């Protein structure tokens, strides 16, 4: 079995999921840049040049505090708390390499029913990951609980969400708060007729 071909290991970008060399054609190259600078500078030598030019204004320090995950399969860049600063998660501010400030996403769960082909419908659950819940895990639990298909997919904004087959929007809230007590009811919202409505 010596002639067995070894699988090629491709460097995938954890931000956009594409092979790192295709980030420049991905949905949001800007977001990939901090990770690329740390993990694949040879692919984008210009990025490194840019950064070195800006080093004067401590951009690199900022990057470190954003906490770039060291590769691996995780889709979202992990936020590592830096140097013992105990800023609360909600208020954490990300600084992009361009110096732009980006607010960290609010911790909330959005549940939306989407009707397809008149009779089929899907309930989309977004935001569980913001509570530290593993989506693949949650998806399994939801599928089991409601005896239906559930899967983790990337939503239109390239964030991961769970699609559950069928209309379970109103049973799901109870299930979420029972299964993950850390999630407050007040953080759950429904989208109804395009409007966001608090579930609690």
């Amino acid at each position, binding site marked *: *079995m010596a002639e*067995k071909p070894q699988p090629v290991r491709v460097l995938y970008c954890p931000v956009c999921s594409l*092979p790192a*060399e*295709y980030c420049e054609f991905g949905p949001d190259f800007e977001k990939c840049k901090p990770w690329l600078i740390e993990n694949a500078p040879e692919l984008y030598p210009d990025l490194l040049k840019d950064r070195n030019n800006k080093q004067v204004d401590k951009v690199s320090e900022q990057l470190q505090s954003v906490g770039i995950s060291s590769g691996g399969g995780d889709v979202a860049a992990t936020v590592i708390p830096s140097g013992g600063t105990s800023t609360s998660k909600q208020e954490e501010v990300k600084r992009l390499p361009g110096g732009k400030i980006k607010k960290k996403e609010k911790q909330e769960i959005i549940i939306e029913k989407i009707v397809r082909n008149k009779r089929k419908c899907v309930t989309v659950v977004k935001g569980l990951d913001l509570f530290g819940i593993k989506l693949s895990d949650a998806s399994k639990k939801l599928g089991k609980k409601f005896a239906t298909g*559930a*899967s983790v997919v990337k939503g239109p904004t390239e964030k991961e969400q769970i*699609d559950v087959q069928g209309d379970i929007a109103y049973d799901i809230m109870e299930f979420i708060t029972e299964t993950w007590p850390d999630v407050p009811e007040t953080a759950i919202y429904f989208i109804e007729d395009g409007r966001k409505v608090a579930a609690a």
Partner: protein
Amino acid sequence: MFKKFSSEDVSSQNQVKASVQRKIRQSIADEYPGLEPVLDDLLPKKSPLIVVKCQNHLNLVMVNNVPLFFNVRDGPYMPTLRLLHQYPDIMKKLQVDRGAIKFVLSGANIMCPGLTSPGGALDDDALAETPVAIMAEGKKHALAIGFTKMSAKDIRAINKGIGVDNMHYLNDGLWKMERLE
């Protein structure tokens, strides 16, 4: 084909009978002889092989919740891009120029001039109506799986219109479905 694909396009998931499993394995081994040495790892005889039927006569072949191949009706099996990335030499390669990359990644079919321009490249052995890997100028890894409308020789000679249908590309619905639970 997978532009708007998601788990809701799945109509059924079934573990197939041993005889069907053997048939699928055989077709894949015939189509991709380069995979033969690792076929036992990819499609272990003991792990159940799941065929996922989706809309538009599309089927996925899945092991341990990971889609590995797809086909349309009884057409040839094609690897998912994640699988092709691991075993890049199992398919004939056609290369588009850099200018075509963003079109391919938005799902467009591949036009002949994108393959025949200085940045493009053609494997002259590629025949019509066969699955091929679509590579790109300056990139190491495939960005799409194509199905040729004409042979590489005709692509060169005719040099207009669609040369290859874009079946599956980076960041389409199948790419995003890394696993199907």
